[in-house]
């Protein structure tokens, strides 16, 4: 080994060690900061009960607080008690403070049992639970998500317009407006269905050609909305069995068509609103008899294009050139997918929900060069069950609705996320 390179290695090692120590110190400090308030509050209550005294302090951890954070909590508590006249002592003291770091489904609960002779008195403080962040895995093409809104009501579909977010709920259309804190609810209007809803209701929403308003289909109803100069919206719903739009109502460039300068005529499909699937009758015809399906995406390629659909029997098919072809490699797909024009790889990918029944559903991008789906990204965990998925107005992102019901102790929530891709 050359002396210089050896020195370099030693220096590098030292830098690494220092960095690690620095990070550890930062982490310990962050942990300590987190517990400052509850430690002070508990010390205050203990001092009010015990007064200036010596006491043996015993800490028990009944919570998910990592063991390595307990010394920091002990230090804080002892400091706060000392500041209030209570000195930590050994077993010789007649006073004992049993501190239990406990928790329930909603919050942490710190309890002090203060034993003075035969008498035990209690002090309690509650501490808000801290949610833990999860990071998406990284691979060749990386999907990333951004939360658009979170709501307590089920979301069937949503559309971002120039100034508003239009959200379709099972029985209402909700208009959100921009605010400093993100989207804020501005108004809601009943859809006015006369027929009972299905158990698994769905909807689609597309922008009007001028980009200002929207057209939406909900079970048995068709709705339109246009913004007014007063910032209010003119919303109108009517009973309708008209076919639903599968692609935007105006001729557009879709699913990779932009790169090929292909104009796509709007495609519509009849929807069975009592059973929540498309009947298989589409207009204009694709030249092949389509089976009933849950989801369909128009996918254009340089050599033509076709309709990728998910049959209600779970089979993924590609209708192309008047023929219906089975797609392999889609075993892991759920019922929902959408086209994403990421510009990575082949330009357009299909992003499909996972097939699991899990409470933590996932999204994954696939390339479809022929009739075989090839994974193009790692799965992106969505922390809930995906209930709806559609392409954004420009196809450069997709929107996904995630129902978060798994965590006991928390209210059911519906989260609308925007998912886009980074090319690596």
């Amino acid at each position: 080994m050359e002396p210089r390179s050896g020195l370099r290695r030693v220096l590098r090692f030292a830098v690494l060690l220092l960095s690690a120590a620095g990070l550890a110190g930062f982490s310990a400090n962050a942990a300590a900061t987190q517990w400052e308030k509850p430690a002070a509050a508990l010390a205050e209550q203990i001092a009010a009960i015990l007064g200036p005294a010596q006491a043996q302090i015993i800490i028990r951890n009944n919570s998910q607080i990592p063991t390595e954070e307990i010394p920091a909590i002990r230090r804080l508590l002892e400091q706060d008690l000392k500041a209030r006249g209570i000195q930590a002592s050994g077993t010789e003291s007649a006073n004992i403070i049993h501190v239990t770091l406990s928790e329930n489904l909603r919050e942490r609960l710190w309890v002090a049992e203060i034993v003075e002779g035969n008498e035990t008195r209690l002090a309690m403080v509650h501490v808000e639970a801290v949610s833990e962040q999860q990071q998406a895995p990284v691979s060749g093409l990386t999907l990333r998500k951004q939360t658009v809104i979170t709501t307590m009501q089920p979301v069937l579909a949503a559309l971002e317009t120039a100034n508003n977010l239009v959200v379709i709920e099972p029985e209402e259309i909700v208009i959100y407006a921009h605010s400093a804190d993100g989207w804020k609810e501005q108004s809601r209007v009943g859809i006015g269905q006369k027929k009972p809803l299905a158990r698994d209701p769905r909807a689609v929403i597309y922008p009007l050609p001028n980009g200002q308003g929207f057209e939406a289909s909900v079970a048995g109803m068709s709705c339109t909305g246009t913004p007014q100069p007063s910032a209010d919206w003119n919303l109108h719903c009517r009973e309708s069995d008209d076919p639903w739009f599968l692609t935007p109502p105006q001729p557009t460039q879709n699913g990779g068509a932009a790169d090929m300068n292909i104009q796509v005529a709007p495609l519509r499909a009849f929807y069975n609103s009592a059973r929540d699937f498309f009947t298989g009758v589409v207009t204009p015809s694709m030249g092949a008899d389509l089976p009933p399906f849950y989801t369909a995406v128009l996918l254009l390629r340089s050599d033509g294009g076709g309709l990728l659909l998910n049959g209600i029997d779970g089979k993924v098919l590609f209708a192309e050139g008047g023929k219906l072809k089975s797609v392999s490699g889609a075993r892991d797909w759920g019922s929902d997918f959408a086209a994403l024009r990421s510009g990575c790889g082949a330009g357009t990918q299909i992003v499909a929900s996972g097939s699991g029944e899990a409470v933590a559903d996932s999204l994954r991008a696939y390339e479809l060069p022929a009739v075989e789906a090839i994974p193009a990204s790692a799965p992106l965990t969505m922390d809930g069950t995906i209930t709806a998925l559609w392409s954004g107005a420009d196809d450069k992102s997709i929107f996904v609705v995630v129902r978060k019901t798994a965590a006991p102790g928390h209210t059911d929530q519906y989260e609308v996320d925007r998912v886009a891709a980074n090319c690596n």
Partner: protein
Amino acid sequence: MLRQIAISCLVAALALPATARTRPHYGGTLRVEVERDPWQRPGGLARSLVLDGLTTMSSDGTAQPALAIEWKSENDDHRWQFRLRPGVHFHDGTPLNSSTVVAALTDLCGAACPWTVAHAVGSSVVFTSDSALPNLPELLAGNDYRIALAGAGNPLTAPIGTGPFQFTAFTNGVLTLSANDNCWQGRPFLDAVEVHVHRAVRDQWLDLSVGRADLVEVPAEQLREAHDQHLSVVASPPVSLLAVTISDSGALANPNLRAAIALAVDRSALSNVIFQKQGEITASLLPAEVTGYSFLFPADRDLSKAHELRGGVTPPTLTIIAESGAAMQLAAQRIALNLRDAGFNVQVANASAPQHIDLTLRRLTLESNQPQPALESMLRAAGLAIPVLERTPEGLYKIERQVLDTHMLIPLLYLPRAYAIGGRVRDLHLSVDGTPQLADVSLSDIQPEAAP
């Protein structure tokens, strides 16, 4: 050659288009088997399928709109107004309105209702009460307050409700419930649910194994066996409190004797031997997950303290009864043995025989995971007085301590509710109290209908 064929077959199989998981299909009949009466209160499976409440319990234990869409309280929670959901009909077509709801609630609890008066005001039901009812929305989500059309059907065996399923028939021990196409929550995925009633658990498991049943019960004490048999089990968190209620009359009017009984029960033996370590030992009414302070109630047996509290008094022979179920009978026998160790003479009696009962071993359901409504509903179910419940953990702890210091209710174990399911059952979830939510279940082997 054979190897080449095998490899070719494998390659061909891998190349076959895969079948993906789909959205739930509509249709089919779910076959359920239960040991007890499906209409019993509380917890009867059929009640939750046929009847709705004014409110329903969310997964975090707060009341959510059901037949009532909004509510407000006035006068410090002494008056509540619940506005009803418009356009809801009972299964026979009768519209749901405030009068039908008031009549249903009067039929349900009469003079024993938590409120003093319920009356119809337009499209609302107004409850007034002499004492504050801060948890009324959560209380109304409970199984006891589900709305059945008064004066129609048979309220005990075929009530008419507004729920996702409606009574169709009861023949040869099989209760048939069919989908309510006009359900306000949306039609359920299943066409029907058949409930085979009064079926022994062993027979239920046998039927599941041969494909004659789709959903069967797994008592807590048989959870381990179910796992050993590789049954597909869906279990709730611990929601069923095994507890002894003690009469404060007769020999046990003496609070020291009741306290001695509480100290003499060996919870560990009950948990280990009878309930196969599937329960959580507890001496508190609410579990740790709900309050975080249950460790403040020591659950250890203390025979010497029990003897001390008895003070040499030998009361006359006490009687203990248990709710139905083999494990409950065994548990009652073991408690009788425990108490004998502390100098009590206890006899396990038949629950149906009319006599003075000193001790009753029963199960109480945790109906919410919010501590206040959970404690209130539990005290109501146990027939105990409801104190003014405070909202802070300290306040709730004090109330629980007060209640338990009367020694009229001895918590023993928290047990889960569990079910085993067949391979075609999809999306089975349990509600907060462990009841299966069958309206959201679908069957994987159903060919979807082309049209309804």
